């Protein structure tokens, strides 16, 4: 890049052109992304409500009150636990299945492109639409799951009507919808592993499992971590699935932090909603910090 300076005597011209090119994005970005990010933080320290809409700067400063109130709010604690459960169950499940599929697809010589497209298909579809479909798949009577279970004589429960089963059921749908994304990432990672390494291990008499455990997994480590963090960040924000399938129920069993924030917003509690969203942001940052730590260690 810097070599261009010898050819181009007018660096100023270049800087002007660069800013002309950058300006539309930067201006929109400041107004609609960076500004609101900061405004949201500011609002989380105030008692702003929907009635303050026209005069958002004439509101009372309440310090950390929204945050302390959130931490003592039983419903917020519940939705935070639900969200954590969703991440803790969903990330390993999605990663595990995606890795198995990626290793398999990487191994086949025919139909690999076909498999890749097929497994990826749910990723491009609307969460709302697939949630509608899965809501009916999970139906107690006449749903596809319980119909299949009835073939082996099992009477399936009303998956989404149970306070214990509803959240895992939504997690399973998310794993189904998202594993194709991770599969593509893992496949790209797998293809950077030189075949020579596996051949050398084979000559040394390594079994398939040993090759996977001592070559594939360590070589794939940065890719796996990247996938885990991306998936974790996505799952931390789950909302549409519960909105459509269960409306957050039964008894708030599937209500998430984003759902809670949306609820508070619709109640008009803007300051409280902003504080809840910042606590979610904090969780995302923690995950990202972990990512950078691990990536830093690797390089």
């Amino acid at each position, binding site marked *: 890049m810097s070599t*261009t300076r010898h050819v181009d005597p007018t660096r100023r011209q270049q800087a002007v052109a660069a800013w002309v090119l950058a300006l539309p994005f930067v201006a929109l970005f400041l107004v*609609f992304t960076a500004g609101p990010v900061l405004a949201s933080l500011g609002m989380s320290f105030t008692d702003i409500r929907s009635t303050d809409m026209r005069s958002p700067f004439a509101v009372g400063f309440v310090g950390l009150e929204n945050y302390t109130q959130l931490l003592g709010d039983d419903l917020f604690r519940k939705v935070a636990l639900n969200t954590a459960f969703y991440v803790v169950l969903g990330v390993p499940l999605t990663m595990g299945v995606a890795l198995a599929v990626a290793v398999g697809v990487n*191994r086949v010589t025919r*139909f690999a492109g076909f498999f*890749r497209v097929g497994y990826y298909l749910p990723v491009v579809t609307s969460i709302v639409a697939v949630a509608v479909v899965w809501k009916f798949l999970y139906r107690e009577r006449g749903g*596809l799951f319980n119909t299949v279970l009835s073939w082996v004589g099992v009477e399936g429960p009303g998956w989404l009507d149970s306070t214990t089963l509803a959240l895992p059921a939504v997690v399973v749908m998310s794993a189904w919808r998202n594993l194709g994304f991770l599969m593509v990432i893992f496949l790209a990672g797998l293809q950077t592993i030189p075949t020579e390494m596996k051949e050398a291990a084979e000559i040394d008499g390594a079994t398939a499992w040993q090759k996977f455990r001592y070559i594939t997994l360590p070589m794939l480590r940065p890719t796996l971590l990247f996938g885990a963090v991306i998936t974790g960040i996505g799952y931390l924000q789950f909302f549409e699935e519960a909105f459509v399938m269960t409306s957050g129920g039964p008894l708030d069993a599937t209500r998430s932090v984003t759902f809670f924030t949306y609820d508070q917003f619709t109640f008009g509690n803007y300051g409280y909603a902003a504080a809840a969203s910042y606590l979610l942001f904090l969780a995302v940052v923690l995950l990202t910090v972990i990512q950078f730590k691990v990536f830093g260690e690797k390089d």
Partner: protein
Amino acid sequence: MSHKTTEPAPLDPVDIETQETEPAAGRASSYASAPGWLYAVLGGGLFLMIVPFIWMVLTSVKPEGEARRVPPTWWPETFTLENYETLFVKLDFPTYFINSVIVASAVTIGNVLFGAMLGYALAKLQFPGKRVVFALVLATLMIPGVVTFVPLFILVTNMGLTNTLTGMWLPFLSAPFGVFLMRQYIIGLPDELIQAARVDGAGELRIFFSVIMPLCGPALATVGILTFLGSWNNFLWPLVVATSEDKYTLPVALALYAIGQNATQYGLLLAGAVVVVIPIIAVFLALQRYIMQGIAMTGIK
């Protein structure tokens, strides 16, 4: 994949896989061919991935009585398009569809154009503030959408844009993802191209539009498709901005029908899901190599 070369041809996933498997098949015996059971397992898994969509389509063409039968029929006994007729004639799905197309198109055009412009500036030009801009864009890559939506709603309300399509697309023309991907792609284009154009006396902006842009086809396509998909499926923001039915996008309409008074009309709702999902699946199948390439590019830096 930071070392992208000049060739504008996209990295076809099929190419990658033949590259990978051919030499292996020739050499090591255990790589010669995958065992049959692996195809069976992958095929079974594939069936599980696809079966909800098949079931969705099949149920959407059953009359309501058959759609709710226990145990359910698999293949429709009576084939009917009445659910689609209800969606498009009695309900206002044509409007929702057009709204979705308008919003997703506007968001896509903005992100592709502005993302490429800034991506090029960050990749190939020297300017004061460059590092700050890049850091700013990077820093917001991970921010959950829910963090901005309350202030954004106040802003859009005060701009008089609630319950307008403009209010739905205007705040989303500048997603960091497009910049990131364009910068990564353009950085791989040779500097000599730009230098040669400068020697020929081309202005800086002209270089971008007539030299760089034509070489960015695959990256532009990737950003465009992924942005379009994301916007088409976007839910929370249009849900908040649209207050009257004539401004609903497809996912908003479908979700509100699914939890509202139509919640028990299975055939109708699944037909609605078909209308939301099938266009996007068609786009995906037609252009999947750009999508795969884009995902792989974001994955391995």
